[in-house]
């Protein structure tokens, strides 16, 4: 059993503050885990299933940071640190076969020195391996590559990534309410004091009060923030990914150059996922996938692995990512790092938004938010998520959700949970 709550004397001193986290993506799940571990009472509100939004349709790349070590060092360092921590707290939820940055053109080759230098600067362990060796390890790699550098990339499965965090949070007393949509924020004067919820399973409305509300709604964070008349400088930026009908590689394959479209192929179970592109969208709920973006994925992927051309597509998907606007530049160079907005400075207290970042850095984002939340609620509890092993993701669906009468009634005698069937077989 992971570490328990705050010691008992503290509880007697004052009632435990209640924090509502909106959104059960990677950020929301990690934040719920961090806050629950620090002894706060946490309720996660998610309008769909866990990882229903951005985190679900994910490139699943456990970044080593190599991709950003030249253009965005801050983000690169965050990635490599988190990469190493995730290997400790969720060891059995990762494919750890490392990754390769491969050079295809002279320009790529020229980039190699800056790349190795960047990796060294960001303490990313990067070793160059011979082309022959690279082709032996990854037989479907383009035989015409000029150089290959090995980095500690990995692969996670986003749905279970979030479930593991949330299951651990629940073990520490958090409540997770899926299929519950935040229809409005309850504000009294300059304070956000609660949320209005519509439970789509019953159609019932409910108001839930809290001492503080964390807005981790990803590309929808702007929509949620607008309900408290504050804004978030976030541009929902969609990206297309294409999954192949087979797994062509074991290591993550990256193009050795500055980040560009479709320059990464990530293996995942029995498929390889090519990604990604980026264009601004205004409605993250309904993104039509432009055909030329899909074709671009195939042509880019084909350069890394020629076999991509004659493997049928298993699926194609697009999702909006909550990138933070840095002076309105072109969507690609928007900083990949994350930002925590304490809306007290916009005149609305008790409301914090967390945006940007990547799933790989979810734990670090959660730590930053939790530090701010604990400071605002004067809870003196340090972050312990760096070395707290997460419980099995499978527990998430077995933990009784108080309102959802159907799931396992824990502690009952050996009665088998009713797994009946629906009327319309």
């Amino acid at each position: 059993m992971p570490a328990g709550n705050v010691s008992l004397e503290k509880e007697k001193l004052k009632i435990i503050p209640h924090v509502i986290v909106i959104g059960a993506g990677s950020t929301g799940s990690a934040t719920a885990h961090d806050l629950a571990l620090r002894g706060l009472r946490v309720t996660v509100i998610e309008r769909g299933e866990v990882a229903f939004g951005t985190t679900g349709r994910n490139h699943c790349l456990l970044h080593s940071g190599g991709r950003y070590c030249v253009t965005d060092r801050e983000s690169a360092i965050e990635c490599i640190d988190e990469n190493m921590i995730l290997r400790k707290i969720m060891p059995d939820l990762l494919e750890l076969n490392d990754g390769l940055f491969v050079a295809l053109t002279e320009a790529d080759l020229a980039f190699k020195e800056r790349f190795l230098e960047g990796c060294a600067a960001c303490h990313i362990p990067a070793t160059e391996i011979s082309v022959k060796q690279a082709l032996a390890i990854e037989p479907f790699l383009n035989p015409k590559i000029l150089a290959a550098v090995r980095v500690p990339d990995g692969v996670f499965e986003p749905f279970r990534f979030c479930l593991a965090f949330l299951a651990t949070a629940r073990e520490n007393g958090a409540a997770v309410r899926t299929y519950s949509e935040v229809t409005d924020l309850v504000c009294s004067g300059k304070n956000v004091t609660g949320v209005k919820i519509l439970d789509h399973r019953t159609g019932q409305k409910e108001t839930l009060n809290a001492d503080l509300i964390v807005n981790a709604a990803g590309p929808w964070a702007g929509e949620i923030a607008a309900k408290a008349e504050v804004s978030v400088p976030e541009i929902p930026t969609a990206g297309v990914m294409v999954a192949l009908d087979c797994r062509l590689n074991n290591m993550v394959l990256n193009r050795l150059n500055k980040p560009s479209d479709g320059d990464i192929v990530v293996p995942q179970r029995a498929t390889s996922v090519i990604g990604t592109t980026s264009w601004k969208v205004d409605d993250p709920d309904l993104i039509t996938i432009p055909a030329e973006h899909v074709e671009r994925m195939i042509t880019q992927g084909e350069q890394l692995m020629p076999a991509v051309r004659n493997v049928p597509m298993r699926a194609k998907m697009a999702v909006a990512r909550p990138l933070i606007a840095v002076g309105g530049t072109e969507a690609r160079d928007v900083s990949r790092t994350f930002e925590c907005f304490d809306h007290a400075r916009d005149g609305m207290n008790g409301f914090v938004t967390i945006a940007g970042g990547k799933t790989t850095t979810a734990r670090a984002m959660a730590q930053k938010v939790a530090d701010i939340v604990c400071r605002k609620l004067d809870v003196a509890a340090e972050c312990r998520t760096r070395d707290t092993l997460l419980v099995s993701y499978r527990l998430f669906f077995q933990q009784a959700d108080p309102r959802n009468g159907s799931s396992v009634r824990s502690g009952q005698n050996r009665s088998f949970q009713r797994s009946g069937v629906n009327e319309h077989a």
Partner: protein
Amino acid sequence: MPKVPLQIFRYKAGEPSRYDTCTVDIPDSAHVIDAIDAAWAVHDPSLTFRRACHHSSCGSCAIRINGVEKLPCVTKLSDVWDGRTPLRLDPLRNFPVVSDLVVDISSFFQRMSAADMAITCEAEAFLPFTVDSFAVAALERKAVELPEDFSRFNRFEQCIECGICMSACPTMAADDRFLGPAGLAAIYQARHKTDDPKKVEHLLGLADGEHGVWRCHSAFECTEACPQAVDPAGKIMALRRELIARRFSKMWGK
């Protein structure tokens, strides 16, 4: 952009279940999940359904399309829609329905926890690795050499715990205590991934009961329905062969 008519099973707590019909505009190269997304985003945000990864890796979106269990994220619209009749979408069978297309899978994950199958396993020593051998028949296999400091490459298990086999299995319909195809296949997988005799004893003991492998009546619907070619029925039968052999050797003291 064709107009796809959908007939979606709807159920909210306390109300009688019904079917809602709506039409969605999606390209004909789309997948069924895109139709459900459109129905939710355009027509009715109260429609509850599950999805996450969109490429058959998370296993959350399994439903029945025209009565047959499928993953809507990798089911092409053109494979299931004849261009006219509405596409009927139902939740999985053999699970209590929580709301619309969402079913309660807590008992399913109890079974999977009991099997305690690690989600990663050793990657094959060749590539490509696929669950759809027809699709990649053209690609010839190539061997994979491991880097010196690597004892093995790993990958996530084929089974994505989507529950499709549990919905297809006739015994699952009737027996709450039956471990089910996914549970038994996970026991098989866990049994072959450990060499600790005590764990093997425990796993085989789990499978040997009245509601374990002996409740399977060779319908093979699970193997037919599995989108990830896990072949649960084959694994159940292999477990049986081992249990029978163990029994005979115990009887004759081999």
